[in-house]
């Protein structure tokens, strides 16, 4: 399939790849097997104990002896020697198929990907047509046309394998064609041929090598299959032909089917494993972040018990975070993204969480919901919500809180609605689960909510799929969903960033109204001080995983304490003027 591997043009890929193979036990084993197989193929005439055509009548289906190490076949010929000679024919056949496939597929893929247009369309159609054909049957159909030369058949098979290379190359080239460094090369006047040779071939090299390894395996299996069916040259020993002979005598000499099969399987497995080692290496070198391994545990709970019994909260504090540390597992160990955050939120209050991207504000928000991305976990610290410690809770207990008591409004409306389900269903389902109400009741509530958040035609929106409504409407739907189960704490993560400027103010107003209506406390994650000035009672400024300053809105705008806050406010000033802002006259002590 089109497991398109993203590639980064690293300094010296071939050297890194070699090191990756030699550092992996599987890579070493696979390389060794291949070296042995290739040597056997090349050296067969010198190392084989017998001539492959040598017949000993006493050894027909005979057991192993001093000269016939693996016994004899039905014609009294030495199985071991024939295995060695068969390696020649089989590997050469695979080489022909892979050679044709690579040259044809990569060339056409380069042209289609780099120049596109008509050629891309035609080549894409041909490639799809070729992939729609069962290859073995096509080879059988053309058997009489091609004659019993297995190399000609393998060349045709190479054509049928070319679409794999075509697609891979085309997609990779399309990916890098508009990269800045390719643009730069084009602007600086390099010819297309030079650009392809210097920049693009470098990127596609490793994925092509992986594809070659896999396709070689396919070619060996198919070729053996043809020979097993009797469509090979009976005079030359091949692994498939030997299996055919063994199959015919399966009741007489059952062990004979083992050796050719083992030879095929070992060779193909080595090729695949080598390809896998290279792919793992590529993925590791291109994505510095979370490893593939860490991604798997998505639905499993990924929280550790860190809850310390803190002092009882004042009754008007709904949420108290102290010394929260959040980390992600990476290949290089635990990477902390939140480094000891402490926050307090009073009932009915709106707290702004402000900072640049990467400051840890969203991760702090997600850890309250228990919805950190896979690989992430709360390392230490405490999140006390209405008297309940959240950090130690298991998934089931967290699940009971979400929707009913904790709610979430995301940043990007379109990607946060399930594209496969109608909007109505996405509102009704959580209400039925969380509130335990009937379908009809949930439907009534959903329609009322859609009207409440300002959708002109609630019925139409209820029956629409997400791609049928605008981004602003989608965000209103998400807000309706967030408040649908009457939560106590609403966490809104940059709720207006992805929206048109004209819609932003309306959505903020809606959030403010709903907060009063539903008696919620709100955490508003944003990077925009205008939003803070508009909607928040208190603000915490975050930078590099820490809260550098927390204050109520008025004092933060009038008298920012931390240099970083001042800088952020200063950069905001260039665009808009927050109402109560007075330039700082005294430099305070940084918090």
């Amino acid at each position, binding site marked *: 399939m089109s497991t398109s591997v993203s590639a980064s043009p690293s300094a010296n890929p071939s050297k890194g790849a070699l090191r990756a193979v030699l550092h992996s036990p599987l890579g070493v084993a696979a390389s060794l097997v291949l070296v042995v197989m290739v040597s056997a193929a090349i050296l067969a005439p010198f190392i084989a104990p017998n001539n492959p055509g040598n017949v000993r009548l006493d050894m027909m289906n005979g057991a192993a002896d001093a000269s016939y190490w693996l016994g004899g076949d039905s014609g009294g010929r030495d199985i071991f020697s024939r295995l060695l000679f068969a390696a020649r024919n089989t590997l050469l056949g695979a080489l022909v198929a892979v050679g044709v496939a690579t040259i044809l597929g990569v060339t056409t893929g380069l042209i289609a990907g780099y120049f596109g247009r008509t050629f891309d369309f035609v080549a894409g159609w041909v490639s799809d047509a070729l992939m*729609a054909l069962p290859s073995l049957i096509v080879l059988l159909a053309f058997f009489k046309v091609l004659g019993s030369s297995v190399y000609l058949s393998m060349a045709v098979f190479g054509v049928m394998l070319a679409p794999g290379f075509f697609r891979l190359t085309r997609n990779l080239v399309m990916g890098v064609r508009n990269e800045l460094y390719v643009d730069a090369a084009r602007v600086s006047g390099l010819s297309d041929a030079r650009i392809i040779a210097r920049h693009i071939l470098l990127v596609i090299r490793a994925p092509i090598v992986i594809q070659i390894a896999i396709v070689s395996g396919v070619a060996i299996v198919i070729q053996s299959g043809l020979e097993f069916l009797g469509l090979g040259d009976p005079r030359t020993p091949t692994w498939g032909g030997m299996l055919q002979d063994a199959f015919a005598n399966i009741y007489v000499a059952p062990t004979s089917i083992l050796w050719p099969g083992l030879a095929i399987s070992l060779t193909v497995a080595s090729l695949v494993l080598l390809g896998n080692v290279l792919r793992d290496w590529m993925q590791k070198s291109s994505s510095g972040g979370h490893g593939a391994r860490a991604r*798997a545990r998505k639905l499993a709970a990924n929280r550790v018990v860190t809850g310390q019994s803190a002092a009882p909260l004042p009754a008007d504090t709904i949420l108290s975070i102290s010394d929260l540390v959040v980390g992600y597992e990476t290949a290089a160990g635990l990477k902390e993204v939140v480094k000891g955050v402490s926050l307090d939120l009073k009932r009915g209050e709106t707290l702004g969480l402000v900072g640049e991207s990467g400051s840890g504000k969203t991760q702090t928000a997600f850890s309250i919901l228990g919805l950190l991305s896979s690989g992430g976990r709360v390392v230490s610290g405490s999140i006390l919500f209405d008297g309940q410690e959240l950090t130690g809770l298991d998934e089931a207990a967290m699940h009971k809180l979400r929707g009913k008591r904790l709610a979430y409004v995301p940043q990007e409306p379109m990607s946060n609605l399930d594209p496969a389900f109608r909007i109505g269903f996405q509102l009704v389902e959580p209400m039925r689960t969380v509130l335990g109400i009937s379908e009809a009741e949930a439907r009534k509530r959903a329609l009322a909510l859609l009207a409440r958040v300002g959708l002109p035609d609630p019925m139409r929106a209820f029956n629409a799929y997400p791609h049928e409504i605008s981004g602003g409407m989608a965000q209103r739907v998400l807000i309706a969903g967030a408040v649908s189960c009457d939560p106590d704490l609403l966490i809104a993560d940059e709720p207006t960033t992805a929206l048109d400027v004209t819609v932003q103010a309306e959505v903020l107003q809606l959030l403010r109204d709903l907060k009063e209506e539903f008696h919620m406390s709100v955490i508003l994650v944003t990077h925009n001080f205008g939003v803070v000035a508009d909607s928040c009672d208190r603000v915490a400024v975050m930078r590099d995983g820490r809260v550098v300053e927390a204050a109520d809105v008025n004092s933060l705008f009038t008298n920012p304490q931390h240099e970083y806050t001042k800088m952020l406010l200063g950069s905001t000033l260039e665009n808009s003027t927050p109402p109560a802002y007075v330039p700082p006259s005294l430099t305070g002590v940084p918090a």
Partner: protein
Amino acid sequence: MLGFLLRRLGAAAILVFVLTSLTFVLVFSSAQNAARNILGESASQEQVDALNRELGLDQPLFVQYTTWLGKAVTGNLGKSWTSNEQVASAIANRLPVTLSMVITAITVMTIISVLLGVAAAVYGGWLDRLIQFISVLGFSLPNFWIALILVLTFAVSLRWFPATGYVPLTRSLYGWAGSLALPVAALVVGGIASAAQQVRGAVIDVLEQDYIRTLRARGVSPASILFRHALRNATPPALTVLSLQFIALLSGAVIIERVFAIPGMGSLTVDASLSGDTPVIMGIVIVLVLLVSLVNLLIDLANAWVNPKVRLK
């Protein structure tokens, strides 16, 4: 929806036409001394000429093609050169056998690979590694070799299943299942793990989408998130994988039928190919291309049903 269906049908018709025409030119251009091959070296030149006339091989290739095409669209695929049987009826006798095997195989493969793939996506760990291991194994072991080992173990040594032969479903359900158990097992081993890996990847991709986080934040149950939302969104890529697996199974069936002496399309293909029975080969190619087009059409329709966005385009 109707426009979508018509466009797909049109594309499939073009594909069938191009591929069969190409095949015709290739196989018939090389079949010009078929009469000599059929009659043998001892036949006189007159006999050979007469047979050539009878088979229409004395005509120019283009005339042969239009004649063949004119008959083919009415379902008349001509007569076999070796058995005198009508090609259409030969195929009609064999196709149900192969289809019952391949459909059973793809069903078994779908169920197991979806279960394994989803489990691996959710639990990861050793299950993940097991699937990767089986996938390398399934890829490396040729299916006909697996078939031989299965025959050796379960038919020759243990005698649990018949080694060869086919019992039609219409005669005995039990006999049919018994005769297909080993062939289907040999067919699916190679594909299951790789299909499971694709399903796993698709499910993981969906589980990392933003809307899954939002659904979880709303309190939707984990079971519903996995089996309703994630599975539905992972269906289109999984369907594509299964359609490719179906094509691979058709190829695999050819060899497997040989091992188990099953009288299906595979044995028909091999016999026609070895004896140079060109009309039969043409018939097989046209039926298979139609079959693959039909399957792809069904997959497209299933995709449109699952994915509301596709429906509008």
